């Protein structure tokens, strides 16, 4: 009887797992192999390192304050992507952490309303959200007419790095606040009380109790903001007026130009860097959590 049910079990297991296994193989793993395949081949599918080395060696001249300067095109683009993404992530964390904490200490009803409110913009397409900022930040836009009313401005924001950062922060802010909130909501309020009773001041409670306990939420918030901001291509096109080419723009541009092998090479390099970075962060975070 037992054996019969076991045999049935393994048959069921094979039947239920087979379609997904096949699907995951064909449409998750094989496509990633294709990225590597395209990255290391030329247009006749002969093996080459050219695409990869082009990323690291290609140069172009830019006009820097009237001076012509030779720069590494793609390394510069990558550095810029990383810089803007890190700044945006940091601002999201700075804004989102206190907000998540405040919400997690509110009454259950208020918590639910607040979280629903935060999710509403997230449900709107990010193209529309970005577009809204384009309307606001334009030279003849609402921000400047408001500033004009109080006798200030006009300020030129659209087409600057600041505009791109504003767009990234606005689009991905909910991804920071939600994971931090969900960790904090599960936090036992008694721990904070206990720390207070044992003589901790507010700063001490935050540093010694709340922050270490919220670390897993912070880590997942950082990943969820950093990864889309580093790879975006719409925000930089719309709010940076295409002047601030990011790594996503580089991939998209090569795709539009039907330069699939080089597009694959950039994607491959981005993927390797992200995997490496995430492994590093996981390790660091793991150690931190143990130490705390």
């Amino acid at each position, binding site marked *: 009887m037992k054996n019969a049910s076991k045999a049935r079990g393994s048959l069921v297991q094979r039947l239920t797992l087979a379609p*997904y296994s096949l699907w995951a193989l064909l449409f998750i793993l094989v496509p990633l192999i294709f990225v590597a395949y395209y990255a290391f081949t030329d247009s006749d599918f002969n093996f080459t390192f050219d695409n990869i080395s082009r990323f690291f060696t290609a140069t172009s001249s830019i006009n820097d304050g009237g001076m012509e300067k030779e720069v590494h095109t793609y390394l510069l683009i990558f550095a810029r992507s990383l810089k803007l993404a890190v700044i945006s992530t940091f601002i999201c964390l700075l804004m989102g952490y206190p907000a998540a904490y405040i919400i997690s200490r509110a009454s259950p009803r208020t918590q639910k309303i607040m979280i629903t*409110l935060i999710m509403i913009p997230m449900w709107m397409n990010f193209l529309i959200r970005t577009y809204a900022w384009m309307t606001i930040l334009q030279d003849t836009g609402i921000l400047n007419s408001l500033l004009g009313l109080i006798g200030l401005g006009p300020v030129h924001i659209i087409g600057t790095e600041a505009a791109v950062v504003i767009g990234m922060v606005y689009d991905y802010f909910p991804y920071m606040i939600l994971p931090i909130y969900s960790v904090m909501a599960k936090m036992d309020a008694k721990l904070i009380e206990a720390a207070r009773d044992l003589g901790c001041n507010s700063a001490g409670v935050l540093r010694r109790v709340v922050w270490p306990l919220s670390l897993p939420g912070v880590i997942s918030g950082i990943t969820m903001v950093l990864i889309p901001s580093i790879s975006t*291509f719409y925000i930089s096109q719309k709010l940076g007026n295409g002047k601030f080419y990011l790594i996503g723009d580089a991939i998209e541009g090569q795709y539009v130009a039907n330069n699939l092998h080089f597009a694959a090479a950039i994607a491959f390099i981005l993927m390797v860097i992200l995997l490496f970075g995430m492994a590093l962060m996981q390790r660091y975070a793991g150690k931190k959590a143990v130490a705390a």
Partner: protein
Amino acid sequence: MKPAAKAYTALIMLFLFAPIAILLVFSFNEAKSLSVFSNFSLYWYRELFRDAETLNAVKNTVLLAFSAAAVSTVMGTAAAVGINKLRNKYLRYAMDTVTNIPMINPDIITGISLMLMFVFVGRLFGAATSLSFWTMLISHVTFCLPYVILQVLPKLQQMDRALPEAAMDLGCTPLRAFFKVELPEILPGLVTGLIMAFTLSLDDFVISYFTAGNGFQTLPIRIYNMTKKTVTPKMYALATIIFFVILALLLISNLADSESSRSLKAARQKKKANI
């Protein structure tokens, strides 16, 4: 809440909703201006509803989202059942890792990787363009699957393993045992997964952008094409409609949620009273 905390949350909400409010207000503007509100008018809404291409994109988006959600929910639920039964530690780890890939990878890489494969396979068969509704459906199912699996798997883990075995020992076929015993237990996870898959598919731009054929346009791609050239308040009208649809859906799901939690509470109290 303390006054400072209240003021801070108010500022955050202002930051989140001011841009949306501006879109709403200016969708009713008569003129094309983005900074001066001249007169109330429904002109841009009329324009929007005359735009056959956009209406067609809405239809395509809904069709694609329904198909992707249906396929990924059925396949994902079956996969979760199978993964839950895996005893081999390494197989299990491999499955979990593969399932995580589409969620961790940036959308642009998922999109590019699928596109490269479709183009390559298409060329093998001598097709000029291999991208179509079907390649989009495959891509959407692929990025929806992990979310379904991750919603269903915890419900299976919470369930008493002896239940389906007992059903089978009492003469149920495995399939019947699944529908009679397991399915009711995992239904909440399955429904959440289905809704997540549906909304993810509706909202996706990046992966669709790389895997869409010329003939099949979804709403996000249509929005992208509309915002490529000039600024048109038609977009604001569209955004306003989308905003209110989302608001209605959220309200309904919240109501349903509190309704079901209330009935759950009532059931629990009844149980307690019986004991």
